[in-house]
């Protein structure tokens, strides 16, 4: 299982973005470390893709303090959900082209 992600990460960088979106679309919010574990990526790599997604307006970033630690969580925006759903539809159509 794990090797698939690692393999894909090398070949397509955008896989990480897709992974982030896939996780956020089914969870109300996720924090950085959970995403990191889930996608098995490095801090820097994940951070840059998250920034990219935020710039596109697909996700929002919330920073909170829990004691002295910062806790950063991510949420999908309505635009992000729409874009992701359309992407899914496109993929499905690639498999089952409608006549």
């Amino acid at each position, binding site marked *: 299982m794990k090797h698939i992600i690692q393999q*894909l990460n090398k070949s397509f960088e955008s896989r990480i973005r897709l992974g982030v979106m896939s996780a956020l679309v089914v969870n109300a919010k996720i924090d950085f470390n959970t995403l990191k574990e889930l996608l098995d990526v490095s801090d820097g790599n994940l951070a840059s893709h998250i920034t990219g997604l935020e710039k596109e307006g697909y996700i929002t970033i919330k920073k909170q303090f829990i004691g002295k630690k910062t806790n950063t969580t991510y949420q999908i925006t309505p635009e992000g959900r729409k874009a992701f759903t359309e992407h899914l539809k496109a*993929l499905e159509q690639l498999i089952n082209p409608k006549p």
Partner: protein
Amino acid sequence: MTEKIDPKQELNEIRRIMERSTSFISLSGLSGISAGIVGILTYFFVYSRTNYLFEENPNFATTTEGLSYLLKLLIPTACASLATAFLFVLYFSARNAKANNQPLWNKSSKQLVANLFIPLIAGGAFCISLLVHSYLDMLAPTMVVFYGLALLNASKYTLEEIRWLGITEICIGLIACFYTELGPWAWLFGFGILNCICGVVMYFKHEQS
């Protein structure tokens, strides 16, 4: 960057991440088997401690001393066997999580535990009320029904087999609610044998590699 895209693989990947981010996949089949064995042992323990009393006096449970004997026997036994089964589940799942390089205590496992225990504790309290009112016939079937509801509720956060286990438990428990003479069998089957079967299925489906 956009080399050949394999949409099927991409969709599988998306699905896998969705599942992994919402469900605890390290639940081990061995934990189901061990929980089942704990269930079977509990059944025979309680049977050996109560059966002769009912043979002496079928209305044993309605007497004051009978009731207090049952309360003192059944509540600690239920708590102890639940705790033992839970420890086994934790142990085998921790082992499995470690082998899969996954955390044991993540968002999904927390939700799994919370969603399992809320109906389970409610069921436990309800069963104590049944005992207090001497509705002894309904005790075993009710436990099975609530266990099934708890599993069904928790199944959103783990492997699909748990959902089917939950539904089967509910059916068995409800049948025993109507045919209360089947109560002890439903208990043995629901908490013992079914857990074992589900554990074996889970083990061979997810951990044989």
